[in-house]
């Protein structure tokens, strides 16, 4: 099967001498919902920029559905829909024109372009605002405008660079279900985000990039299974003035009403409660300290930092 995206030994050295990518290899299968994660400055946008030909690569190969960008650039471009990290439409253009013009650059006749603009702007809740200049949209609406624009030529590979940055919770949830639908209908999606809950919820495969190198590339489930412990936060009913002794658990006191307990994967939580009850500690409520992926991510990227 031809991968939707295949990167081989991709490097990028910017003109100012910054090496953003140190030879990365990556493969994304057709139909996948793929997360590309990494801290600020890791090289995510650089990678996406090269794939969408907004950034010149220094060396390496990029293939989009088998089309090498060095030899079949136009064919590769036709496969990709891009939602960039920064707003990049003409703010004085009316919303509908932003979408219709973009369709034009892909050779889609105006009538069809209007039909699709109506469909996608409606789905993204922007059709009512179609005659407004793009600058009059709110930040979250501008992000959705860029999604509609990226879909207008019905790309096989949709690349979203932090599409939910600055988007409120309700809209974010509706964006998630929208993207899931698009993916279920067959579009391969690559997503970058700093909301790890989002990646955990949506994506099946994941790559973590740090300082221009891929430090992890695996299935979401495999990665999460690798977590051998997680931290629970307990809100206590009665104040506690010392860290209690809980055999088999590592506990720490945040304040007199909050206790954090690290629980390893092979231990049953019931045992924790048995130990707590034995000491007469009443627990009012309980939650995970961070989302699982977030905890893993911090460890992976953090370890790397210590090593460097």
């Amino acid at each position, binding site marked *: 099967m031809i991968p939707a995206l295949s990167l081989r030994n991709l490097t990028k050295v910017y003109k100012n001498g910054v090496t953003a990518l140190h030879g990365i290899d990556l493969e994304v299968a057709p139909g996948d919902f793929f997360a590309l994660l990494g801290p600020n400055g890791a090289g995510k946008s650089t990678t996406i920029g090269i794939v969408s*030909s907004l950034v010149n690569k220094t060396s390496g190969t990029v293939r989009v559905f088998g089309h090498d960008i060095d030899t079949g650039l136009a064919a590769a471009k036709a496969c990709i829909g891009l939602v960039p990290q920064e707003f*990049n439409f003409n703010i004085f253009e009316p919303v509908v024109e932003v979408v219709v013009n973009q*369709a034009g650059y892909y050779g889609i006749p*105006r009538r069809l372009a209007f039909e699709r603009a109506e469909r996608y702007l409606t789905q993204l809740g922007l059709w009512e605002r179609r005659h407004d200049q793009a600058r009059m949209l709110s930040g979250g609406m501008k992000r959705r405008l860029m999604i509609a624009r990226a879909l207008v030529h019905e790309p096989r590979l949709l690349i979203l660079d932090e599409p939910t940055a600055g988007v409120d919770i309700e809209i974010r949830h509706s964006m998630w279900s929208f993207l899931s639908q698009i993916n279920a209908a067959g579009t391969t999606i690559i997503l970058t985000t700093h909301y790890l809950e989002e990646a955990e919820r949506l994506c099946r495969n994941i790559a973590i990039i740090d300082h221009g190198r891929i430090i992890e590339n695996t299935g979401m489930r495999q990665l999460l299974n690798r977590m051998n412990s997680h931290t629970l936060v307990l809100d206590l009913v009665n104040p506690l003035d010392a860290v209690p002794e809980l055999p088999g658990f590592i506990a720490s006191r945040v304040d007199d009403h909050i206790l954090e307990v690290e629980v390893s994967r092979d231990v049953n939580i019931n045992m924790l409660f048995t130990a707590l009850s034995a000491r007469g500690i009443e627990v009012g409520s309980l939650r995970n300290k961070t989302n699982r992926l977030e905890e893993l991510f911090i460890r992976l990227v953090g370890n790397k930092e210590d090593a460097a």
Partner: protein
Amino acid sequence: MNGREQYVAFKAILVKEVLRFARIWIQTLLPPMVTTALYFVIFGRLIGSQVGDVNGFRYMEYIVPGLILMAVITNSYANVVSSFYSSKFQHNIEEMLVAPVPNYLILLGFIGGGLARGLAVGVAVTGVALFFTPIPLHNLWVACSVLVLTSVLFSLAGFINGVYAKSFDDISLIPTFVLTPLTYLGGVFYSVAMLPTFWQSVSLANPILYMVDAFRYGLLGVSDVSLATAYAAVVGFVAGLFGFALHLLNRGYGVRA
């Protein structure tokens, strides 16, 4: 992209470019009409009446072709330089760069926009001129072809300026310090034959002189330099600048990191 898709893509860029300047017509179409009217009042009517005939034409009539061409030059250039630079500044040039539309069509689309604005201004200014003086038409084909070629040439020049520009200052530098002086010294307000021999030969190094002269020939039927030289110069410049602009675009100069 197949031929039909390319045609659609070109049309999309052209329509966008035309809408851009049409939407802000108060900034793009009105000012040249006002300026030209002022030129006619001051140079044509007030001063011109003291000057007497030039090459057998009243001064007012003599300066018409140059004034029209000057407006066309300035506006073609301004349209492309500001459109390209602002699409670089706002990054919406990326909308074209990510799409499979070939670079030569992107270039032609911007040039088409400059040409459309140049011609629109040309027509508007001619309309203004007709309030002041009748305008003869000696040779329609010469007049039209020179107008179009000149507009294309300065659209290309504006494009190249836009590619190199890194700030809003850079897009007014060339128009102020190169274009305006060359236009004023390009025989818009006088016949080069009126200059001392030394300055005549210096003037012949100014490409705008040839265009003004050829356009004046198209309208009035009088000229200082040969028509063939004028066409050769303009066509040569258009071909050279087109090749250079396309090269810059292919390399992604100023638009791709």
